[in-house]
């Protein structure tokens, strides 16, 4: 990082104190405000959450009482606010997949051998720092590429372009993977796919990105799925 080791250490200490829960309420709110515009701080907080999470296992599990679930169930609203009929199309998708598979068996002999389609190895949902609304979906495919799909229209100030960066654990600083058209695209990802790798969409000058990322628009972590 251009800030040097001291800045990085200070940022990391702050993130660690925050995740440990050591800060008073006012200081914790300051950190949250700061993290909203400071992507490396947001990434440091996420990394500390993952690092320290196993400590929660020191607490002995405790079986909830019989009434605990009933109480939760009674409090559930009739439908969640972000309802999508995914539970309906899931079985349909499976059925059509099965039908397609049967068909594929019948036509298999007649088709030239095709390379296997790449499958998703990891996924990340990117949100604006400080927000919980996923705006961009990133998939790491088995063929060594990342596909980037905006879930809503990405508006950009005049004269700015979108940069797409990742920060693999093996790298000392974020790496520019490419400039991104507003409707998304695909970039090469010449690193091992690892859980928790930060990926971000940034705002860069029209002439292209420099050595360090511009302001972070959306940030997320890769979650390995297969």
């Amino acid at each position, binding site marked *: 990082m251009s800030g040097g080791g001291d800045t990085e*250490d200070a940022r*990391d*200490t702050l993130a*660690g*104190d925050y995740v*440990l*829960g*050591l*800060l008073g309420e006012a200081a914790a709110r300051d950190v949250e405000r700061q993290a909203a515009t400071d992507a490396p701080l947001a*990434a440091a907080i*996420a990394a500390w*959450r*993952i*690092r*320290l*999470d*196993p*400590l*929660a*296992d*020191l*607490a*002995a*599990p*405790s*079986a*909830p*009482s019989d009434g*605990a*679930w009933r*109480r*939760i169930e009674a*409090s*559930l*609203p009739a439908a*969640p*606010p*972000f*309802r*999508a*009929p*995914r*539970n309906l199309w899931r079985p349909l998708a499976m059925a059509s997949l099965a039908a397609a598979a049967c068909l594929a068996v019948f036509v298999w002999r007649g088709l030239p051998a095709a390379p296997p389609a790449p499958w998703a190895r990891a996924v990340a*949902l*990117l*949100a604006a*720092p400080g*927000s*919980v*609304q*996923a705006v961009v979906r990133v998939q790491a495919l088995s063929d060594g590429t990342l596909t980037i799909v905006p879930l809503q229209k990405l508006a950009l100030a005049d004269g700015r372009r979108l940069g797409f960066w990742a920060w693999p*654990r093996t790298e000392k600083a974020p790496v520019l993977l490419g400039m991104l058209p507003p409707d998304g695209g695909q970039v090469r990802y010449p690193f091992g796919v690892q*859980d*928790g790798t930060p990926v971000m969409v940034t705002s860069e000058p029209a002439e292209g990105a420099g050595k360090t990322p511009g302001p972070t628009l959306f*940030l*997320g*972590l890769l*979650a390995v*799925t*297969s």
Partner: protein
Amino acid sequence: MDTAWDDTAAELSDLLSRCAAGDRAALRRLYDLQAPRLKGLALRITGSQAMAEDVLHDVFLRVWQQAGQFDPARGTPRAWLTTLTRYRALDLRRHAGREVAAAAPPDLADESPDAIARLIASADGRALYHCLAALDAPRRRMIRLAFIDGRTHADIAATLDMPLGTVKSMIRRGLSALKRCLEQ
């Protein structure tokens, strides 16, 4: 990151997205998988069965309402559930004006063998355990008091009868040693 909970991470992610789609069976499955762990954590922080079940209620309600907004920038689904539970438990404890539990185990070595076994059941937990074990006992104890027992800097200084500034700088050095160790 090589995590032993990769298997469950995928299932938890799937359950969260089904919750966001309004699938109550998915919320029930998530509850069956995670409620005992989360209630145990809440119980450790609040020291009260009733309050721990209040935490559980609030956390699962929030999961139902916000599963679609699960923030990937905040880590894995498991860490998200841990975070929701810790914060809610700390809030309820604070609002109840409850004093922190008087007798917290003094060191990692005094955690029950079962607790250590749970911690080292995952690759991440094992790495964390070894790196914590490499810290000196007071730093290790402070980090644990903060995370698992929900103590603040001031609580810890009072518990250990040490100046606040000393506690802050010891934790700072402890965390940075922990991070270096985990990155090796």
